[in-house]
């Protein structure tokens, strides 16, 4: 089992927009990934699941995946969570 723990960097945590970008990437990667925060675990491709974690900035989440492509998928998702996606939104606007 591949596993990574990362602190969420987005200013407002893992809510609608950063959560959506995260879920889109998880779907695109096509590798089943589980996200853990506290005692909850949800599939990374479930928007409602990810939102239900209630992750705020700085919260550590653990990503887990198995099988072919697991390491690469986790690297990509960790890279995404390590960025402040809200700051990028401000730049876009």
């Amino acid at each position, binding site marked *: 089992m591949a596993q990574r723990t990362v602190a969420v960097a987005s200013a407002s945590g893992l809510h*609608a927009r950063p959560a*959506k970008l995260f879920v889109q990437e998880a779907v695109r990667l096509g590798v089943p990934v589980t996200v853990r925060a506290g005692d909850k675990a949800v599939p990374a491709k479930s928007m409602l699941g990810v939102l239900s974690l209630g992750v705020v900035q700085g919260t550590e989440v653990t990503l887990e995946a198995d099988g072919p492509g697991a390491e690469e998928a986790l690297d990509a998702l960790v890279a995404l969570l390590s960025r402040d996606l809200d700051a990028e939104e401000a730049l876009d606007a």
Partner: protein
Amino acid sequence: MRDDLLDPRAVLLHESAPDREAAIRLCGRVLVEVGAVAEPYVEAMLERERSISTYVGEGVAIPHGTNASKEDIKRDAICVVRFPGGVDWDGEQVVLCVGIAAREGGHVPLLASLAEILLDPDRAKALREATEVSQVMKELT
């Protein structure tokens, strides 16, 4: 879910909208009418939606403003607007909009408790098919 967020007057169950923008404007107007947000918040909801879809699954979208629009929020609140005929939401069919206005610190916990409710298929279905305001109040407060 916090029980001071949803004013029964902010629940509309028999609406129709030609498109996503009209649906969001309606949600925004409801939030303005119950005194939760100032008028400019409605445009911020549209701006947010253009930036990324607020569709979350289960036929539900959660339109809300941009981070910059937080100052237009007078108090944390949600509204529930149901479109029995559905609204095309960038390829998804939306039957229920939960419009959200939440200030710093309130947004993430609010979303988490809403998501928790919608993850229960029976409760999500009850909300999608609600015809009485009391049914919505029961699920969301």
